[in-house]
């Protein structure tokens, strides 16, 4: 029986929970509410690849210019700004999401991936697309995940979880892995957690694991410290 090749997430403590990393190739959803660390997760994942000489491609659906991203990332010690434009290509697809149909958007993403040939891909956040494509959203997600699975890469899609839902259900059925980030109020303070909800072909740790977000490492699964 052939073992999956796996790529390290770069998140301290997470690889140990999932037999060494995310299966290569595969598509993962990292979902959570506002401020739970989704973009930090995605950046840590890309920089981990960049350190190893792997090519990353970051699609933003938010129309944020590169310098905004750089300003945001400058707080983190693990990010080398020189990666951007080189090992990590940054691509704004916000205007396409707003102005084009989903088939045009898929074609653009496919072409960009063929041009850059990344081993790691991020789309942050994918859920923005839902508010523009409405009735075509499920078709778009289905075709997008198929497209991503065709490439020899590990893709991380980030998704905002609506306040009254546990996770964005319309995406979870199509992806290979689902990692939930959450923030719970306990004893008067907010604590952050990471939970691997699903990972195909992987004997993963279940249950919510406490995390912290540090400037040095980004997301850290706390039990890995002990």
């Amino acid at each position, binding site marked *: 029986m052939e073992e999956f090749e796996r790529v390290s997430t770069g998140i301290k403590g997470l690889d140990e929970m999932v037999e060494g990393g995310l299966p290569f190739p595969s598509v993962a959803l990292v979902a959570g509410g506002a401020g739970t660390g989704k973009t930090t997760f995605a950046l840590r994942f890309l920089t981990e690849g960049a350190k190893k000489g792997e090519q990353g491609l970051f699609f933003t659906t938010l129309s944020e210019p590169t310098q905004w991203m750089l300003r945001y990332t400058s707080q983190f010690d693990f990010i080398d700004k*020189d990666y951007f434009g080189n090992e990590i290509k940054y691509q704004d697809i916000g205007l396409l999401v707003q102005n084009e149909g989903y088939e045009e958007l898929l074609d653009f993403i496919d072409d960009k991936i063929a041009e850059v040939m990344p081993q790691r891909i991020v789309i942050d956040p994918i859920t923005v697309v839902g508010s523009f494509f409405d009735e075509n959203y499920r078709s778009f997600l289905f075709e997008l995940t198929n497209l991503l699975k065709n490439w020899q890469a590990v893709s991380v899609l980030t998704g905002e979880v609506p306040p009254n839902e546990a996770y964005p259900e319309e995406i979870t059925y199509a992806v290979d892995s689902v990692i939930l980030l959450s923030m719970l109020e306990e004893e008067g303070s907010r604590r952050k957690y990471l939970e691997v909800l699903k990972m195909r072909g992987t004997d993963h740790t279940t249950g919510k694991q406490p995390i912290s977000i540090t400037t040095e490492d980004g997301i850290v699964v706390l039990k890995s410290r002990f």
Partner: protein
Amino acid sequence: MSGKSSNNINLDLVKRLTDDVCEIGGSNIVLIDTPTTMVAKTNFFLLRGLLDIKKKKGFYVALDRPHQNMDYLLSNHGIDRDNIWYIDTVTHISGGEKVESRNVEFVDMSFEIENLMEVFEEDGNSKGSPSLDDVDFILLENLSAMMNYNSIESIEKFIECFDRVIHDHEDLMGCLVMDTNAHENLSEVVNGYLDKIIDVKKIKEEL
């Protein structure tokens, strides 16, 4: 990180890889050892160099992903595909319509890889592909993908046959791509047939 941009490193890597591969000349087999995450890219870099820089003609044997992926990559990067012919062993086990273009032959041999070289034994075929006397290389995409469907004994039989075919043609190079660290048992089997090993990771460090 070096001062070079990743685009320049990629171009240098294409050139260096192709030079190193072509150095072996015809009638020889070279293994291109590359990390699993780089296998698709290495195949593309090799084809880019062989077709575009060296102006070689050859066969690409798709063992892992349908040949359409590589064809799309080459087309997207503006590489002339007149001198490449595909042998696709993968598409028949996936869904969808199999469109047989001028330069592709679909073969149903994923599970009996030891017979794959029969495809080349005919002198050209109905799709208008050339005979092995008229091409410069056969590139096997991700050799370790064979392990999904075949025993190690079957793969060894295939390699024996591949070796015989390559050595019977004085201008023909055999190129194998795989990650030897991820598949040590396969690597041991293949080692005895190789004339040269190129380590992509090492080349990248040097660039």
